[in-house]
């Protein structure tokens, strides 16, 4: 649920990066953080365990610029991927405006991707959302690794509806901004369609 503030002429939107553990969600945010000018970003917050696994969420606020005199901000969140953190994932999805599903393209993670995507749908539905109606893009990450499932197969299993998709290597940043841009654009187009009050 975006927040439109006519008093301060700001609009805030929430983007959640979802996906199985270790697929590269935090790495996506870190790359965005590194490549964004200091005046356009806030602090990146990572609530992580000592071994750097995301415990609750990562958070990165971005101020991208103005549209029609309104400062446009995106709040990027990641969820913890491990199965047992489901309660935390549900909390982070509250009020989401757009979702990026980061898939780990490695063959050994195929089942984990499918399970995580199902989990995303279930958790959204619990809150009265439908993934099909949300701004949603898919990123096939870790394309640099040798043992990846072919894209056609990933597409068939994870993207039967043919939403916008990207191949990526979050470690080098390939595909990271393309993914973010695409979901941001979908969110803004959704705002344009209406629902500006409520």
């Amino acid at each position, binding site marked *: *649920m*975006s*927040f*439109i*503030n*006519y*008093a*301060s002429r700001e*609009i*805030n939107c*929430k983007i959640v990066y979802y996906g199985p553990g270790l697929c590269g969600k935090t790495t996506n945010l870190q790359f965005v953080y590194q490549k964004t000018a200091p005046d356009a970003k*806030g*602090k990146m*917050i990572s*609530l992580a365990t000592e071994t750097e696994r995301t415990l*609750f*969420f990562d*958070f990165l*606020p971005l101020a*991208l*610029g103005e*549209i*029609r*005199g*309104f400062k*446009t901000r995106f*709040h990027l969140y990641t969820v913890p991927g491990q199965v047992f953190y489901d*309660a*935390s994932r*549900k*909390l*982070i999805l*509250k*009020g989401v405006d757009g979702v990026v599903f980061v898939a780990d393209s490695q063959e050994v993670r195929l089942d984990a991707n499918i399970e995580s995507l199902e989990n995303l749908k279930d958790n959204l539905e619990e*809150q*009265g*959302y*439908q993934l099909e*109606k*949300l701004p949603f893009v898919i990123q096939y990450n870790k394309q640099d690794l040798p043992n990846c499932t072919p894209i056609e197969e990933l597409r068939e299993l994870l993207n039967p509806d043919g939403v916008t998709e990207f191949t990526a290597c979050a470690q080098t940043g390939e595909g990271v*901004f393309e993914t973010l*841009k695409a979901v*941001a*654009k979908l969110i*803004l*187009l*959704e*705002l*344009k*369609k*209406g*629902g*500006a*009050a*409520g």
Partner: protein
Amino acid sequence: MLEPQNNSFVMYDEEFQRISVVIEKLLRESNSKVIFLVDKNGQLIANCGETEHLDTTSLASLTAGNIAATGGLAKLIGEKEFSILFHEGEKDNIHISIIAQRVILVVIFDHRSSLGLVRLRVKKASDELAGIFEDLAVKAAEMEKTGNVDSPFAEITDDDIDNLFS
């Protein structure tokens, strides 16, 4: 509470002014340092006091995370939610409360105030704030019904969006 999909939370000038008056009064009367209001999704709505050295965006997000997590805890033990949280530090303390089940009010204070005083003043301010958020909800619903939704985004073009990332 099920929020319908794709709706926005809208703040108008008039209500923003009214909110500012209430939290500034609360700041004075409770002798506190900083006050801010956060939407349950982590968006900062308003703030006042000594905010210059504070990362208010991060504070807002973590506060909402905190409320969400303790709300989850509450459900597990059969409570609806914990409506007040208090964190005590060496110098500064944080008092967090939920207004009208939707908005989070955060008061940061030090030895110049006390938990008792903050509690008392927060209670009064909460009722006033709840009224304003109620008005806001009614207004937004009316705007939508009459189709009088003058969205700043109605006219946006692909170029506008592309320019954001250039």
